[in-house]
């Protein structure tokens, strides 16, 4: 049995299905522009396709993330990131009813959290959001970015801790 080749259209389509969204999201988390994130993700897939004979199927994911990251870095004059998110569904209402113990001001909470998340160091932020939003396993994130699982874990916990610290500060001063 031959190894699965990236050059097979079917294999390639599978890679696209599996990784296109998480790749685009990673770029967005890290750099902030949804449109550019999309373009760079697509370009990374083009490069994968062009180099399909050189890239083993099980290395395709880390090829995509590494390549896309580099394309983005080459392309962008770095700007301050201000991330805005949609919500999966408007669950806010339901949530505040079932969870009466909100400590942070609910009205402004999403906006505050977006700001605080945007201010995280970009690598930390990307890892944290890949874990929470894309529900990627720590091992998957580690594979994609070529870092250790331990580092992934550290980025996630540090993110959460600094988000909390920043929110505390924000609320303290805003009252």
């Amino acid at each position: 049995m031959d190894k699965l080749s990236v050059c097979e259209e079917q294999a390639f389509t599978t890679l696209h299905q599996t990784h296109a969204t998480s790749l685009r999201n990673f770029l967005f988390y890290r750099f902030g522009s949804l449109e550019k994130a999309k373009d760079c993700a697509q370009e990374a897939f083009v490069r994968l396709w062009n180099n399909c004979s050189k890239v083993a199927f099980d290395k395709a994911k880390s090829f995509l993330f590494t390549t896309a990251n580099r394309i983005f870095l080459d392309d962008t004059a770095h700007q301050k990131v201000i991330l805005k998110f949609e919500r999966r569904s408007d669950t806010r209402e339901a949530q505040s009813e079932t969870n009466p113990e909100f400590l942070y001001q609910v009205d402004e909470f999403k906006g505050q959290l977006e700001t605080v998340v945007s201010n995280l160091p970009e690598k930390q932020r990307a890892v944290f959001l890949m874990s929470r939003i894309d529900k990627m396993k720590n091992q998957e994130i580690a594979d994609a970015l070529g870092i250790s699982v331990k580092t992934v874990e550290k980025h996630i916990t540090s993110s959460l801790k600094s988000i909390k610290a920043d929110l505390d500060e924000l609320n303290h001063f805003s009252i």
Partner: protein
Amino acid sequence: MENNHTDKDAILAQWLNGDISAEEAKKHLSDDEFLKYQQIIGEVDEWIPDTDTQIFDPQEVLNSKKEGKVIKLVSWKYASVAAAIVLAIFVGQSLWQSLSMIEHQTAFGETKSIDLPDGTSTIILSANSEVSWKKSDWRKGKRRISLKGKAYIEVPEKGSFDVVTQEGTVSVLGTRFVVHQIEQALHAVCYEGRVRATSKDNKTIELSKGESSLFFEGIWNPKKLFNIDYPEWIKDHITFDNAPLKLVIDELASNYGLTIEIGSINLARRFTGSIPKDNLSQSLKIIFPTLGITYRLEDNTLYLSE
């Protein structure tokens, strides 16, 4: 205190990772901490960058030809062996100067079809290119031409056929091919049959139908596959499929005889589209506005800016 800190991190990590339950985590954290973390996580978990279900169509990528589309090759047919190759050769200066030399040149924007001395082979010279040969190049079964620029060559009869350039030689093992020359690189593209390309330092690559390779910076780059029958430039339009802007600009310059001042624009950007070979203003309108580049044409010089 130090220890307490590390423990908390571990608890936090395990909780976030789903290794321990929220209840378990709650035991190790203060109420205030736990609820705040829960509120943060609860909100972030609801987030999504956008609601698009597909980021882009994979077919767009699969169809990206010019940059080396990979297709599954159709099963072999023994029938006719015809080799077609495109060679792009990037050379600093012309090599071949000889007395008994036959030369053909094309101007900017011109393509020209020329019959070769064996009576059956033909060459189509692309814009701003030059082909030449000596009589001795065509004796004793030898067939040899030298080229500056780009050409498509058809060789219907088997036998040796060499295209010599400063960067290396391309030999046809089948029958039909193209050669092109720019700077310090050699690009071989085989449309049918087989071709062998040899760099000046004797590195060799053999290409079959639908394969191309670029010799650049001392190596033959890995083969790229494509599935068109003829090079686009033979037709009335030049087609670009996700081509780097640098390449698009080179084609523009060579086809229309322009000097191009690129200013500070990013040449790594990609262009997909088709431009006519005989209508400059239309070509410019097609290429630049879509890329957000403004242009100004003055005395055959094209000025570009973001």
